[in-house]
């Protein structure tokens, strides 16, 4: 099996993990998680140079920060499947005494999480700080970050954009999950984002676009993005995804942003997602 096929199978398992976690907890955010499953798989199983032993500093390895913390199911599934902790622990998502909090946190010391996120707009600034720490330490690895598109409505994001360009934080690759949806409806109805590409460009960033639900396109996109780093500008990938991708009745709608499937829906969802690595 070539690498691409392997990654596609991993993504299918991660999608199963996501819907099973949310079903189990009867709460959580399946929509954005499913949409970003290909991105997370490409990152954690191919592009991110990370060490199996978790170390908070992340010295001499690539670091990933999830700014839109509500898509914790895809983050946790990717961390577990790539060896940060036992996949059985996914079963504890959102329950009492778990390290898998509703939104990612460092407080319970879950390996792979470097900062708490959930209150939106903050993770990008933290990623920039880590990127600066790498420069200070002459560590040539990269910092990756993911933000939502609705999250771009937070003012702190634009403070961070200005800062990263001004300080030439060029060891940073930010991806925007551009699925066009947020809790109350489509971005364009809730709060128009305008010309995102022009906005990021005018803030001094290197801007790319990428199809986020096509594994080959994600791999190519992430590699292209890396080729644009270390040239004085931070890099952003505007990633087009479908919220809920992989489960037909969850796809393309904001309605599955933050609700759990019932007994029938979980059966239907799982019938559409191949079990490839063994369920937790």
């Amino acid at each position: 099996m070539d690498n691409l096929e392997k990654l596609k199978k991993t993504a299918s398992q991660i999608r199963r993990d996501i819907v099973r976690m949310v079903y189990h907890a009867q709460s959580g955010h399946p929509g954005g998680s499913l949409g970003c499953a290909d991105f997370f798989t490409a990152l954690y199983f191919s592009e991110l140079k990370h060490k199996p032993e978790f170390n908070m500093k992340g010295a001499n390895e690539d670091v990933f920060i999830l700014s839109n913390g509500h898509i914790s199911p895809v983050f946790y599934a990717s961390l577990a499947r790539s060896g940060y902790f036992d996949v059985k622990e996914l079963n504890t998502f959102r329950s009492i005494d778990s390290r898998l909090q509703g939104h990612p946190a460092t407080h319970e010391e879950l390996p792979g999480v470097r900062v708490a996120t959930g209150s939106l707009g903050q993770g990008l600034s933290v990623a920039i700080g880590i990127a600066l720490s790498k420069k200070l330490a002459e560590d040539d690895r990269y910092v990756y970050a993911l933000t939502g598109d609705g999250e771009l409505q937070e003012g702190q994001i634009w403070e961070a954009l200005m800062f990263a360009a001004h300080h030439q934080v060029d060891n940073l690759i930010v991806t925007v999950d551009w699925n066009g949806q947020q809790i109350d409806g489509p971005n364009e109805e809730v709060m128009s984002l305008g010309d995102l590409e022009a906005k990021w460009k005018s803030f001094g960033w290197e801007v790319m676009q990428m199809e986020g639900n096509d594994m080959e396109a994600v791999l190519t996109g992430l590699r292209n993005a890396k080729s644009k780093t270390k040239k004085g500008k931070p890099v952003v990938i505007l990633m087009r995804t479908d919220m809920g991708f992989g489960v037909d009745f969850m796809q393309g709608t904001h309605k599955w942003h933050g609700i759990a499937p019932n007994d029938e829906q979980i059966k239907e969802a799982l019938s559409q997602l191949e079990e490839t690595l063994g369920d937790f």
Partner: protein
Amino acid sequence: MLKELLGAKDKKATRDGFGDGLFELGQTNDKVVALCADLAGSLKMNKFIDTYPQRFFQCGVAEANMMGVAAGLATGGYIPFTGTFANFSTGRVFDQIRQSIAYSGKNVKICASHAGVTLGEDGATHQILEDMGMIKMLPGLTVINPCDYRQTKAATLAIAEHHGPVYLRFGRPGWPVFMPENIPFEIGKGILLNEGTDVSVFATGHMVWQSLQAADQLSKAGISCEVINIHTIKPLDDAIILDSVSKTGRVVTAEEHQISGGLGESIASLLARKSPSPMELVGVDDSFGESGKPAELMNKYGLGVSDVVAAIKKVLER
């Protein structure tokens, strides 16, 4: 001791103590980095910036991002010191501090100048009197409010050695430099400045100087005031407070902050649980400040020496 303390001749701002402490850390600790939101001059950070430009990050007028970048630098193993006014170090960025720093356990030092009414002419928009109340509620966050130049410098050095998030609060005006150099600064340990038997006065920040003067005035009337400097609002030095109150049985607190949420309330909470005692709280009573000179404002807003004297007399009558 009282006479020696009150004999202080020099005046220097507590913010100068921060600037000098930060500069010294630049020399002694290569993990220390600094960030500022367009107030480097006001925070007296220029010596550090000029000498260690690679370890300084100008953030512009964007405090929320500054807190996040600091959290990231701490994640990478550095010890970031953020500098801006107390107003913009707390209320404006409370959620950033809560999630990215406190809840995430990041080793960030939030250094906050121009606290309280002694900021003066800029007026109430900038004179924050609620900062300690907000910030002390955050779990695991250490809160320090030093009383003069020397103590602020010592606190700046000490927090670099302490692992965990810290809020360091200081002020704008020139203020007597009265703390003896031989008194060590220890986070969480109050300092007995004047022994007394009738009343315990627990004071923080600029109000320590006011309290020493009040104690001196009252000693002439035969009232013996114990004055204790509580520079660390959290964690509170329960032992020094309970020891003193077990002797005097009467308590006055003094701070340049709203009474609501301040040091006085922390001490009242401790005493209610461990040693209920008559108590008066000197501070700003549910009011905003206004423009004016620091001394005028302290007198108008209940922070004058006469206010401390009145509170002591009142508590002794109870």
